[in-house]
């Protein structure tokens, strides 16, 4: 569903319904902006929350927007993907650290329901080790630096992994865990297709709506 030749900015939303409404209102309408219903948001509001985001973003775009349901699926791949699809999501995430059977079922179900499968490699030392074991390759591999990892250990984003994965597999790469325009640009410069930001948008929406506009202007 996503174009490999374009770069995308994925904005993760984890606030309250009114905060989410405010942030979406500030964002520039563009196909290159993907909206993520964050895990905490989904756990708080359920699939109704995803539908709420879908309605707002699609209204703003004037057509169906691209919504990522950050399910971080760990078990029961089947049930959770069904729920995400029903709520209007175009992509769902599964943890790379989940049992291989779960990841396989998750990808299979995503293909069947025609939504993009994203495998989140947070805390995975060697994403290759996981990809090698899979029956089918996912649409998107997410290289992730967790929020606590960033705050406590200041862990680096694993840019090195991007080329290694792209050389072997026909997937899109999403990089999560950067917040500044420099970091977003760095991820795209290092061949990532999607850069995910979350903190800036929840802490200072107006300042960061500018980041989205700069992204659309400066990065193709």
């Amino acid at each position, binding site marked *: 569903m996503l174009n490999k030749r374009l770069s995308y900015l994925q904005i993760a939303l984890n606030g309250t319904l009114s905060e989410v409404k405010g942030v979406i209102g500030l964002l520039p309408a563009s196909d290159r902006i993907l909206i993520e219903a964050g895990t*905490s948001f*989904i756990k708080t509001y359920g699939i109704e929350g995803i539908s709420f985001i879908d309605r707002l973003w699609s209204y703003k775009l004037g057509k169906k927007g691209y919504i990522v349901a950050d399910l971080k699926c*760990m078990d029961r791949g089947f*049930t959770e993907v069904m729920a995400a699809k029903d709520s209007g999501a175009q992509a769902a995430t599964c*943890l790379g*650290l*989940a*049992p291989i059977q779960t990841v396989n079922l998750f990808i299979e179900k995503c293909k069947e329901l025609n939504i993009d499968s994203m495998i989140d490699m947070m805390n995975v030392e060697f994403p290759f080790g996981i990809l090698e074991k899979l029956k089918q390759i996912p649409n998107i591999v997410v290289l992730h630096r967790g929020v*606590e*990892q960033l705050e406590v250990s200041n862990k680096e984003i694993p840019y090195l992994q991007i080329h290694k994965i792209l050389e072997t597999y026909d997937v899109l790469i999403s990089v999560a865990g950067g917040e500044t325009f420099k970091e977003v640009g760095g991820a795209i410069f290092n061949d990532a297709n999607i850069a995910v930001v979350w903190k800036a948008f929840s802490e200072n929406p107006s300042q960061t709506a500018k980041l989205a506009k700069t992204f659309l202007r400066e990065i193709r």
Partner: protein
Amino acid sequence: MILERRKKYLQIALNSNLIEAERIIQNLPFSNQIIIEAGTPLIKTYGFRVISEIKKIALRRISDEDIRKEYIKTFPSSMQFLMAKNFTSRQIMVDCLINKGKFSLFEPYVVADIKCNDLARKEIAVVSGAQAATCLGVAPIETIDSFVEGCRYFHIDSMIDMMNVENPLLVLKKLKQIPDVVMLHRGVDETEINKEKQIPYYQIRQIKGNYDVLISVAGGDTIEEVERAFFNDADIVVVWKSFYKNTEDTAKIAQEFYKKLKVSPANKI
């Protein structure tokens, strides 16, 4: 820790929808040794409000008569005769019992199976009403530390789910604080595809020998598996499949578990 050491608990995981959940809860025997789990799919479908919904459902199964008996007991014996003749609405009686510290009679122990993997502090802060929450053992260590710390702060039990963790001891060694409960887990997808995958019973004594924690075993569904887990020193056994597939049989199965658990029915009000 809210749970008591030396007691055995049966944890019923609710994973389908609220209608099924209601049917299952209505059929459960009264006991404070039965724990109700708001499963991950249920939370992701309904959001955290599902926890208060579960509590409301649990409250509905208590008859007006039982509530009235407890309500009357809260008055001095000289007044009980008069109160028995008075009509008081169910809501007023419940509110009164809650105000007089009898809330535990109505409030089941609910585990929010949030399977936290990131943003621990944020997620714990919003798990309103649950007595325990879960965090993944495969999550970054910083997240687990933050989760355990958050649970202590909010006075809820911390459960670390060791699904897909080869050696739980290695994870526990790295932690700043030890969680209240360690869950040894065999995933649903794993079980269905690889029927030979065993619950790692040998790890129970390994962990208990080193750490002062309760052990919860998840992934078994027959009465034999539950018995085996308790025999192997597990403190909590989580069941889901039997309850999920045949709601009609729930009462029977729950009663049987209840007998095997040998819990005292004195907790029924």
